[in-house]
């Protein structure tokens, strides 16, 4: 296990040391992935975005002024990429039209599990939910990361789990 801190690893990465950057990937990939998952809701999309964020992070590592901020920096890249991807997806769905979109939904196995139900939540509810349940962060940490109050986080989590329950029970009724 590499004992160097993030700043030292970033300095080495700036010299093209891929092994040093690989250590940074091991340390920070999970949170980057979960942020992408929180925004996009689909594991495969989140994998693509998290990988893109890590690669962009390596390409632009010389632009990072403080190596100790690598984690928040690369997570922000992942979040921006994911939000852009979400916008593109919504534009595509709009372009397909409501009828086609409905047919598309009906043609696949609808919400067979919790993961698909999570994917149906609005992303501003899904992101704190993923950070709280999947990443194991407490409410205070989630509030700091999302820059909202702890009561705001509780409100979003409460709404999210109520909506999640509604989605899951409505699927049960449809079956």
């Amino acid at each position, binding site marked *: 296990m590499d004992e160097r801190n993030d700043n030292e690893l970033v300095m080495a990465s700036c010299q093209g040391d891929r092994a040093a950057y690989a250590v940074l990937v091991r340390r920070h990939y999970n949170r980057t992935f979960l942020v992408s998952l929180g925004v996009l809701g689909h*594991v495969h999309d989140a994998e693509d975005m998290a990988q893109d964020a890590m690669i962009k992070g390596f*390409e632009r590592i010389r632009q990072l002024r403080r190596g100790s901020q690598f984690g928040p920096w690369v997570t922000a890249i992942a979040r921006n990429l994911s939000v852009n991807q979400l916008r593109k997806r919504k534009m595509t769905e709009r372009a397909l039209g409501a009828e086609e979109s409905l047919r598309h939904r009906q043609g696949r196995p609808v919400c067979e599990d919790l993961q698909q139900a*999570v994917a149906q939540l609005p992303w501003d509810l899904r992101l704190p939910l993923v950070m709280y349940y999947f990443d194991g962060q407490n409410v205070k940490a989630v509030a700091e990361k999302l820059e909202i109050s702890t009561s705001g986080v509780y409100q979003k*989590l409460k709404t999210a789990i109520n909506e999640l329950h509604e989605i899951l029970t409505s699927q049960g009724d449809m079956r």
Partner: protein
Amino acid sequence: MNGPCPNRQDRIAEYVLGALDAAGAEALREHLRECSGCRQYLQSLQEQSESLVELGRQIDSGMMARQDRVIEALQDVSLAEPHARRVLPFIGGFARMAVAAVLLLGVGITIGRWTAPRPVDVGRLRADLEASIVAAIQPAVQTSILAHVDQRLQAEAQQRTELARRTQQDLYMLAEQSAAGTQSLENLMKGRFTDLVDIIEAGRETDRWRVEKALQEMRTRTGMGLQALAVRASDRAATVHD
């Protein structure tokens, strides 16, 4: 199955999240003992929460493989050159474009001001035109004055000729009237000398009056020229401003 009490759903969710204080949690537990719909709702949310945690574990189990794929993909990536650093790294894409547009606009205005014709200096223009008009008028005025002076000299010469003719006539009369006595001759001579002095004085007065008139005419013409110049300069300034 009865649903939960609508006004208790949020409280139950808060209970699951551990967000209720001791008194609130105890009050809800008391309600749950009496309400089967809310009990079932609580059980459902708790199972859902456990499922979410389990789902998180499942997702987490694939993390190592995902990290391996990222590290493998990095082998084909090279570092961007240092000059790729953003000029304004603290602002986003749209804001950066807006700042660039404002800067371009500022540069355009600056260049436009440099290349635009300078505003007309009305005072300087007026002084230049005044000098040129005075230079144009002055010779004509001088010619006019000289003509008046020549005319005056000619008139004076005629008066002198006339005076000489009358003096000669008087001398003839004097010769004829020599017998008339010295007293009448002296009186006649005094009268002629007085007439001569009056003629000279009248000539001087006339000369002074004509010079003054000529100068007055020069001032009048110069003033009219300057007035016309001022009008034209004002029109020119108004046209430039438009």
